């Protein structure tokens, strides 16, 4: 398993980025965590329909997204808010989605991020098609897709890996092995010793990294993206991490895991790890972090306020986006709603 930044903040090898960039990425991880806390809180206040927290997975998401070019495609899941935000999908849209408003599925034109996939395992194929299309069109943009350990059991994971390998599409598969698929531990999900080794079966490269290590994730994704971009095919990155929170806010992890396990993973916290590194590099102080958090909080509160103050669409709007144009039947049915 690739590791560059140890839990204590020390390095095993040279970091893939300089100190300034590391501070930027740390700030991003702080911001992401702030969003996760806010979303969890307001869901418990009944202001979000559901929320799937990503706490503990900040390095896996921020580190991998940081390796992308702005025009690279991203196909992610309901738990990958941090990665999606890093790639241009605004907090406000993410919140709208969780509030049950389809307008949250419409990012700006320059943001090549698909709405978060709710189904597990079906969307990796989409990333294969996107990358393939890019090559057909002569573009060197790649497609990254995020999924969890549970998704590797779905048939479409196999089909996506197979297609990507056979056609050598520029797809980067990032599996955040966060230990659980709701209550099922990864040991019950697959008999494979690792998820990354599954790539061997397809003739694809598989890389296992410490998912809580910002640098390792970034380095691995850089390499995979470079490979994909130059037509040398796909890569499967298994980022070993931990889902600190519940599956969603209605889940109770105490029913299937121990406090001891949770405590162990707290010591491996990805945000803390980078903080320790920055402290060691004399590149951190409390006011700076407080300032980052204050700014993050401000942005997130604004996003919450804007999402919540957007009036719900009327009953006629639900017909409008089935096709480019209303069909006669839909127009008639819409008339019934009127």
């Amino acid at each position, binding site marked *: 398993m690739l590791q560059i930044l140890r839990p204590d903040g020390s390095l095993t090898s040279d970091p893939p980025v300089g100190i300034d960039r590391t501070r930027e990425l740390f700030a991003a991880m702080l911001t992401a965590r702030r969003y996760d806390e806010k979303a969890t809180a307001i869901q418990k206040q009944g202001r979000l329909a559901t929320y799937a927290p990503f706490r503990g997975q900040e390095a896996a998401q921020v580190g991998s997204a940081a390796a992308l070019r702005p025009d690279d495609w991203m196909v992610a899941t309901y738990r990958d808010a941090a990665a999606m935000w890093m790639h241009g999908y605004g907090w406000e849209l993410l919140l709208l989605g969780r509030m049950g408003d*389809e307008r949250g599925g*419409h990012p700006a034109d320059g943001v090549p991020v698909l*709405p978060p996939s709710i189904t597990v395992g079906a969307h990796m*194929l989409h990333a294969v*098609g996107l*990358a*393939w299309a890019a090559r057909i*069109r002569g573009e060197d943009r790649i497609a990254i897709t995020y999924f969890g350990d549970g998704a590797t059991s779905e048939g479409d994971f196999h089909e996506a890996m197979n297609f990507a390998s056979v056609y050598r599409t520029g797809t980067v598969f990032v599996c955040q092995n966060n230990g659980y698929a709701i209550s099922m531990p990864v040991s019950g999900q697959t008999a494979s010793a690792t998820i990354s080794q599954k790539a061997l079966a397809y003739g694809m490269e598989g890389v296992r990294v410490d998912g809580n290590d910002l640098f390792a994730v970034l380095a691995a994704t850089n390499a995979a993206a470079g490979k994909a971009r130059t037509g040398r095919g796909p890569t499967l990155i298994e980022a070993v991490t931990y889902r600190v929170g519940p599956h969603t806010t209605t889940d109770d992890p105490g029913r299937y895991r121990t406090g001891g396990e949770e405590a162990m993973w707290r010591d491996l916290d990805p945000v803390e790890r980078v903080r320790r590194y920055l402290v060691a590099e004399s590149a951190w102080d409390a006011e700076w972090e407080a300032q980052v958090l204050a700014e993050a909080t401000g942005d997130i509160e604004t996003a919450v306020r804007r999402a919540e103050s957007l009036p719900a669409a009327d009953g006629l709007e639900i017909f409008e986006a089935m*096709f480019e144009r209303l069909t006669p039947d839909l127009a008639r049915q819409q008339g019934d709603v009127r």
Partner: protein
Amino acid sequence: MKTIARSINDALRTALAERDEVVLMGEDVGRTGGVFRVTDGLLETFGPDRVIDTPVAESGIVGTAFGMAVAGLRPVVEIQFMGFSYPAYDQIVSHVGRIRNRSRHRFTAPMVIRMPYGGGIGAAEHHSESTEAIYTHIPGVKVVVPSTPYDAKGLLLAAIDDPDPVIFMEPIRLYRSVKEEVPDEPIRVPIGEARVVRGGADVTIIAYGSMTRESRQAADLLAEQGIQAEIIDLRTLTPLDSDTVVASVRATHRAVVVHEAQRTGGFGAELIARIQEEALYSLEAPIERVTGWDIVVPLKRTERHHLPNADRIVRAALRTLEA
């Protein structure tokens, strides 16, 4: 005179030539030209980047094509038989039909999924399915079924042009057994328009796919008894052209719906509901359904007891006149 198979080949050739974004994908579509030779010769002309032979993975094919469509290509996917489309059903219902709505027009999936379908071909199990009802029920997806060579070409080109996903059903039984004059130039038949293929004042027969042929035979038999049947070929299942159907039944007062698919929950039930909603006061008799039974499609030796034939359609029409 061209067959349906030839007309589809023409349409695909035209589409590949006219638009660089069009890509064909499916099992055995390239080197072997398709198991029904419908895509014959296209790989040779357009190359493996445009005509792609895929692994045996229906979900993979549709899911990948979906990604391509989102990225701006126009994939035309072949599922070898409708009976093998079910692994791809999740991709179709969960993603292909939904992405426009999910993203409020930001991302769309302009793609065509071709599905050879239907019985009367004496093939092995699973190869004679007519399960269009599960596809017509999906919001966000259009379902089209030509029954003549002209319509096959025109509807396929229209489907490829359509900004939304279209499932293009091809009646295998008619691939080579009907011929018609079809222009060499590109033609377009609008999606969402039924066609009155025969005018008649006494009873309306509504059919699609290979059942249009049985309906024509039935109409000839009825004419010998002095009964003039009007035949409507739906051509598109969704969005349904109910206006044409209703106008006809209002004029004839009697209707017979024909499909080879199983009876319960079949598309005929939708047609009958529409007719009942809009033409009840014009009906002189209950609407008849001539359909397959609620059974697994029988294998070759007993299949003829299941598929509607002209005789069953005639008897149904006569029942509407005796009521």
